């Protein structure tokens, strides 16, 4: 199953943005493009991303026709932003995610990137990432992507331990990961590895091995996620039937501390709760833009978008199924299925929610007066870093990163 879309109001059929987006522009935030590719070779049991394994989805929505449809949404995006005076911004980051983008022909990915570049232009030094499964790339495909302007690839490694990969229903050969990393590096791409911890049956040693293997690949970026048993997934069924144990929070906390220790020791520093990079320049700029509240347009079925305007913002999301997505665009309609108009209260909440996750943190001054009174207590509880607080920043300690929900609740009371 794919994740449920949030509740929201129905957007206008042509997807136009509220007029106030164009007005309140004290400083126009950066602009990123997310391109969703809703296809995978097989679906992993734990995954609830919006992705499909069939190559034909009916109604003209095939994997092969997908890029063409996505180009239409890029055109729509350009017109829509233009209409509110946000059309002439170069794109700072592009992130092609999935699903598994690399199941598409490489030229389709190139075509989509070219279209983004042709529409808005790319900033110089723009970050262009694609997600990939280790077994869905070749030296040739990676070289082609680099040549076309991709700068970065993020591989779903998840684990180095065969029984853990089996529980996750990952199909790749673990030996393929270092190989794929080397190909990508040879092609001149920056490389990140995704890891998952807390899989049922994974020991602390299994986890150590996975992290050490990732480090040994010589990457400059690692994302490590605690496994979430998402409702509606095959794994959720297995847990309900008692075939798998529910991941334990204490175990995941121990594994978080371990990965943080190991990565810091190997020269990768945390810059977001689940992300570590060798230097600030190695951090994923696209994801940072999410946490900093920048603008982005999500192209593709189920993709989310965000456009802010000072103390207000609008978020919207597309219809989920590729077929509905295609037919909307073919009919000249916006694929948006729902949206939320955020006022100052919501925008403030999101700023705290997102900004507290990153190492640069939040300005204490940006908090409400009430929230500020909570800071001292959070420092005393070793959830917030005391030195940073003295310098006027809210920055999580490691304990605070694990208990970020508690911290955010205290800061948004």
């Amino acid at each position, binding site marked *: 199953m794919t994740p449920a879309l949030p509740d929201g109001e129905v957007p206008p059929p042509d997807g136009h943005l509220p007029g106030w987006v164009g007005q309140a522009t004290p400083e126009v935030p950066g602009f990123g493009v997310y391109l969703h590719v809703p296809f995978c070779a097989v679906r992993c049991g734990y995954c609830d991303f919006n992705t499909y394994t069939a190559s034909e989805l009916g109604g003209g929505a095939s994997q092969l026709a997908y890029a063409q449809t996505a180009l239409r949404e890029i055109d729509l995006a350009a017109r829509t932003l233009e209409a509110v005076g946000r059309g002439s911004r170069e794109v700072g980051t592009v992130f092609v995610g999935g699903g598994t983008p690399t199941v598409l022909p490489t030229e389709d990915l190139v075509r989509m990137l070219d279209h983004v570049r042709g529409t808005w232009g790319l900033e110089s030094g723009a970050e262009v990432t694609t997600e990939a499964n280790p077994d869905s790339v070749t030296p040739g495909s990676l070289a082609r992507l680099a040549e076309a302007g991709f700068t970065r690839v993020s591989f779903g490694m998840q684990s180095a331990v065969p029984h853990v990969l089996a529980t996750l229903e990952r199909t790749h050969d673990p030996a393929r990961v270092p190989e794929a990393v080397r190909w990508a590096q040879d092609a001149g791409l920056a490389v990140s590895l995704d890891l998952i911890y807390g899989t049922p049956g994974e020991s602390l040693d299994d986890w150590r091995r996975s992290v050490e293997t990732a480090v040994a690949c010589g990457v400059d970026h690692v994302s490590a996620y605690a496994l979430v048993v998402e409702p509606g997934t095959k794994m959720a069924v297995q847990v309900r039937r008692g075939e798998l144990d529910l991941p334990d929070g204490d175990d995941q906390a121990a594994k978080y501390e371990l990965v943080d220790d190991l990565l810091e020791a190997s020269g990768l520093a945390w810059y977001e709760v689940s992300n570590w990079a060798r230097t600030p320049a190695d951090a994923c700029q696209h994801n940072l833009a999410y946490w900093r509240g920048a603008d982005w347009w999500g192209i593709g079925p189920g993709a989310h978008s*965000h456009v802010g305007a000072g103390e207000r913002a609008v978020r919207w999301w597309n219809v989920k199924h590729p077929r509905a997505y295609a037919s909307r665009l073919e009919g000249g309609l916006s694929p948006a299925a729902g949206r939320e108009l955020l006022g100052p209260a919501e925008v403030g909440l999101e700023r705290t929610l*997102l900004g507290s996750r990153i190492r640069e943190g939040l300005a204490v001054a940006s908090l409400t007066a009430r929230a500020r009174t909570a800071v001292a207590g959070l420092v005393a509880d070793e959830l917030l870093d005391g030195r940073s607080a003295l310098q006027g920043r809210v920055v999580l300690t490691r304990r605070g990163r694990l*208990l970020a929900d508690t911290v955010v609740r205290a800061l948004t*009371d």
Partner: protein
Amino acid sequence: MSPIPSTELTSRIQPAATPPSLLRNFCIIAHIDHGKSTLADRMLQLTGVVDQRAMRAQYLDRMDIERERGITIKSQAVRMPWAVEQDGTTTPYALNMIDTPGHVDFTYEVSRSLAACEGAVLLVDAAQGIEAQTLANLYLAMENDLAIIPVLNKIDLPAAQPERYAEEIAGLVGGDPADVLRVSGKTGAGVTELLDRIVATVPGPVGDAEAPARAMIFDSVYDTYRGVVTYVRVVDGQLNPREKIVMMSTRATHELLEIGVISPEAIRTQGLGVGEVGYLITGVKDVRQSKVGDTVTNASKPANQALAEYHDPRPMVFSGLYPIDGSDYPVLRDALDKLKLNDAALAYEPETSVALGFGFRVGFLGLLHLEIIRERLEREFDLDLISTAPNVVYEVTMEDRSIVTVTNPSEFPGGKIGEVREPVVKATILAPSEFIGAVMELCQSRRGDLQGMDYLSAERVEMRYMLPLAEIVFDFFDQLKSKTRGYASLDYEPAGEQAADLVKVDILLQGEQVDAFSAIVHKEKAYAYGVMMAGKLKDLIPRQQFEVPIQAAVGSRVIARETIRAIRKDVLAKCYGGDISRKRKLLEKQKEGKKRMKTIGRVDVPQEAFIAALSSDDSGGKDKPKK
């Protein structure tokens, strides 16, 4: 000839103009569920006061809660005509029937009703036989010197054993088993004969028509449209419309705006005469100005001697009621004030709890009463409430001889205590003799003292116990039922106090006392209570970012201990663009939830945890309103 009097005959039994010899005041009394209200239905139909179309089962159970639970909570009086032929002449009678509740919590309603009658129909389910409230109500009726008509009901049931139970009843009431009438409230069989028997057996009321009026208030009900409606039974004299009346206890004067009878809807009359039962409306807005037990007289020609007074029932069980949303406190206060208008037994005082905020300590007649009040508050006033574990009232004598009355366990005094007294009840348990052992075992475990035992028949035994009220109020009845396969029945009445070895057990979270969980228990049960409560809270309180010790203590001595381990991780590791709305909504929800959190020391406890801990499965009552 029809037993419904003709128009001509009816003219002889007009309210305010019926000779006492043509009046019959009776009530129907029985154990719960033996079919009083159903029998009343048949009487309403046979006497023609409710026609076929308007009829519905348990017609007189009008309150929503009565209908949903299928039980009677308030007594209802109805005037019905009936004609009897004897020696070729037909005589009309005005019958006044009062349907009463069967549940032990409402025994006081029964005694009020009895005071307005000369006769009682003692109804016994022919498939169940005599049960504890049958005895209790029979004793009450005998004390009031009423004519008793024993009747077996539900003879249509295949399981009915009329012969056997006729014998039992005759043994109890005196008389011949053959004289025990057999009816079915369901089919109507035997009900005509019963009405005739009522006319024949119940004496007409006696009073002095010329004397100054004296009428006994036996019920007083607040009605949103009409104000207080007062139900009276006239003993002497006559009450007339638009005259001035006086409440003898307060000397307050009121004008009679309306006077009438219930049949079964209110009908205005030209007054009420000797022996008649009816209602008055004076425009007062508070039942306390028209108190049950008071005597009404004429202002122009007042009586000097009031009728025997009737005392408000004393609350037996106390519980703290708290609005879940603190801002609902004023709503709760107004709601209690309104219910009080209708319920003299309801007593309450404001109190505050560290754990639960502002609320009221409310006194009830029993657990069913508590449940009903709570349900009405929630339903009629749209309140969400928490109620603390019910407790009885204790009297603590300090060593300095001062006396403290404790209705809230957390207020149990800490200093040097001389003696603690707790209320006790005389309990009557009826059970098949094979269960004597089981009943004794149960009563002993509840600190019961056997006072006597009688065989009502070869198979049925009556056991009389002195028991602490606190031991039977909660789950005792359920236990009794389960240990006797449902055959035992229970009745009890207050019987003073006794000294006992009682202690207060406090529950502490991180060293802070949680007042809502303090309990007064017998010394020997303190440990079990402490372990149970600490364990429960451990499971209910979510883990915090620090370790939380839970302790149960008697005074400064800790008797049980549990620990809630600190939570180490609550962050959602994954947070993409699409997760942000979801996350924000989650946070907004958590913040909503936080409003419903109470903070004890530094520990955030969700309201739900208190509710779950307080609505202990073993507190009985819940979902089992029936006795």
